[in-house]
C-alpha cells in the first residue's frame, strides 16, 4: 500500500491525542495538539516515522483570540511529506520546553522567537540577544507594538518640503461645488 499522508495522520492519531488535523495540499498536513503532547509527537515523528529534519518553527500572533500559534514543521526526505505540529500558547509569560535535544537547529529558531515574541524556552542553551542590541521595549513582533510611536520616540522625522499636501476627494468636491454655484449664478 503506498504511503499517503492520511495514513500517516491516522497513525499519529492512534498514538496521541490530536485535537484537529487538516491536509492543506499534496505533501503538507497540519495537526493540533496540546503543549504536553508536543515532545511526544515530535520524538515519534523523528524516531518511528523517520522524519529527518525540522524545517522551521513558525509563530503567528492571533491577538483577537489572545494566543500565539507555534508550528513545528518536520520534513522527511524519503516521502517528501511536511507535518506541521501546532500548539497554542498564551501571549504573555508562556514557556515551552525546548526541542533542542531532538533537533539541534531548533536552538536558533527558538532564540529568534524568544527575542521577537517573548516566549520562553527553558533548556535552550543559547537564549541571548540575537538581532536586536540592548533592546529595552516589548518584543517587537507582537501585533500591539506600535512602530510609528517607536519611530517618533527615537528618531526625528523630516517634514521639510512635504508641506501643502491636499486630499484628492476634498478638493474634487470643492471644485464640483464651485462649478455648481457658477452654473446656478449663470442660470439666474
Amino acid at each position: 500500500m503506498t504511503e499517503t499522508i492520511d495514513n500517516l495522520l491516522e497513525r499519529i492519531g492512534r498514538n496521541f491525542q490530536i485535537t484537529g488535523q487538516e491536509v492543506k495540499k499534496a505533501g503538507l498536513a497540519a495537526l493540533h495538539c496540546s503543549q504536553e503532547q508536543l515532545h511526544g509527537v515530535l520524538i515519534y515523528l523523528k524516531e518511528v516515522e523517520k522524519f529527518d529534519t525540522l524545517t522551521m518553527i513558525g509563530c503567528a500572533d492571533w491577538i483577537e483570540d489572545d494566543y500565539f500559534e507555534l508550528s513545528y514543521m518536520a520534513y522527511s526526505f524519503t516521502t517528501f511529506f511536511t507535518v506541521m505540529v501546532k500548539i497554542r500558547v498564551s501571549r504573555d509569560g508562556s514557556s515551552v520546553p525546548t526541542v533542542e535535544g531532538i533537533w539541534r537547529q531548533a536552538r536558533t529558531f527558538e532564540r529568534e522567537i524568544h527575542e521577537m515574541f517573548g516566549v520562553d524556552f527553558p533548556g535552550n542553551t543559547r537564549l541571548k540577544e540575537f538581532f536586536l542590541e540592548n533592546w529595552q521595549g516589548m518584543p517587537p513582533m507582537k501585533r500591539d507594538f506600535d512602530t510609528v510611536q517607536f519611530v517618533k520616540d527615537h528618531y526625528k522625522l523630516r517634514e521639510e518640503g512635504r508641506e501643502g499636501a491636499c486630499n484628492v476627494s476634498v478638493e474634487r468636491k470643492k471644485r464640483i461645488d464651485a462649478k455648481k454655484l457658477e452654473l446656478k449664478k449663470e442660470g439666474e
Partner: protein
Amino acid sequence: MAQDIITIFHGPQHPGITGNMSVELDLLGETIKRAETHVGYLHRGFEKMIERRTVLQAFTIVCRICVPEPDPNEENFARGVEELMGLEVPEKAKWLRTMVLEMARLQAQMLWFAGQGGSLGHYISPQWAVADRDLILDLFEELTGGRVYHMYITPGGVRRDLPEGFLGRLGHFLDYLESRLPEYDNMLLRNPVFLERARGVGIIDPATAREYGVVGPNLRACGFMNDIRKDEPYEMYGEVDFIVPTETSGDVYGRAMVRRAEIEQSISILRQIIRRMPAEKEIMAVLPKNHRKWEVPKGDTLVKTESARGEYSYYMVGDGTDKLRRVQVKGPSAVHAITLLEEMLVDSQLSDVAMIMNSLGTNPPEIER
C-alpha cells in the same frame, strides 16, 4: 612557554561572503578552539513591514530580503499568496518565472565564484566572475527594468512580457559563458593552490547532515541527491530535463565541484526554455482592479524554493483581510551559518575561516531579514 587562549573578533567585513556577520573566535596559536557567531548588522524588520501593507504593496519589498539572489523570495511570496487565494497562473507566466529563476541562479553562482577565489586571496576570480555576472544583469535590465531588484514575479503572474529579440540575446550570452567555463576551471578549480587548500577542509559529516537541516549544494556534496526542483516540482521544472550533481567528499572542494556542475545544468535548462517558450500573450491571472480588494482567506501554508544556496521556505498566514497576518522567512543560512558553522570551525585554522564561510553559502541578509 605555555600558550594562552586569545579571543578575536573576525568580521563584520569579509572578503568572501556577501553581507555582514561576525564570528568570535577563541584561538590557541592559529587553531580555533571555540566559535560563536554574532548576527544582527542587517536587521531591517521586513516581517513587521509586510504586516501593514496589502499584498500588492508587500511584493515590492520582499525581494530586498536576500541581496545576491532576490528572485526566490519573490517566487515564494507569489506562490504562497496564490495557494492561499486559489489563483491559477497562466502557462506563459510559469515559463517566464522558470527562466528568471534560472538566470538568477546563474548570477548567484557567479557571485559565489567571486567570493570563493576572493576569500583565498586569488583576486582574478572576483574580477572575472563579477564582469561576466554583469552581462546577466544587463539581460535582467532589459526584461524587468532593474538590475538587482527585479520586482517582476508578482502574485498572479509576471509584470512584463519578453522584449523583442530577448531570447536570441540570452542564447548568445549562454554560448559566451560556456566558452568561458574551461578558463574558470584552469584558473581556479584545477589550480594546485586551490586543490591544496580546499581538499579535506570543512567536512560535513553525512551521517548527521540531513538531521541538522543542511540543504542545497552542501547536502549534495555529501552524496545525497536532494533538490526541491526534483523532489517537489514547482513552476515548469517538471517539464525540463536536468540532472542533480552530487559529490561524496563533503569538503570545500566537493561543494565547489557541485556548484560548478550546477552552472552547466542551469545553462542546459535555459536552452530548453528558449526552445519551448510559448508565444501566447497572457501573463497575469484575473484579479480585482483595486488592490485593497485582494482578500486572502484564513489559512496558512508553507512554500519552498530551491535557491542557489539551498532550500528557501516561507510560512504564510492569511486572516481574511487584505493584509497578510504573518510572513515568516527562513533562508538556508539560518542553519548553515550559525549551528553548522560553529561546530565546523572547531579545530580548523584561522586562515580557512573565510573560505569555509563562503563555501557554505553564508548569506547574512536572509538570517536576520
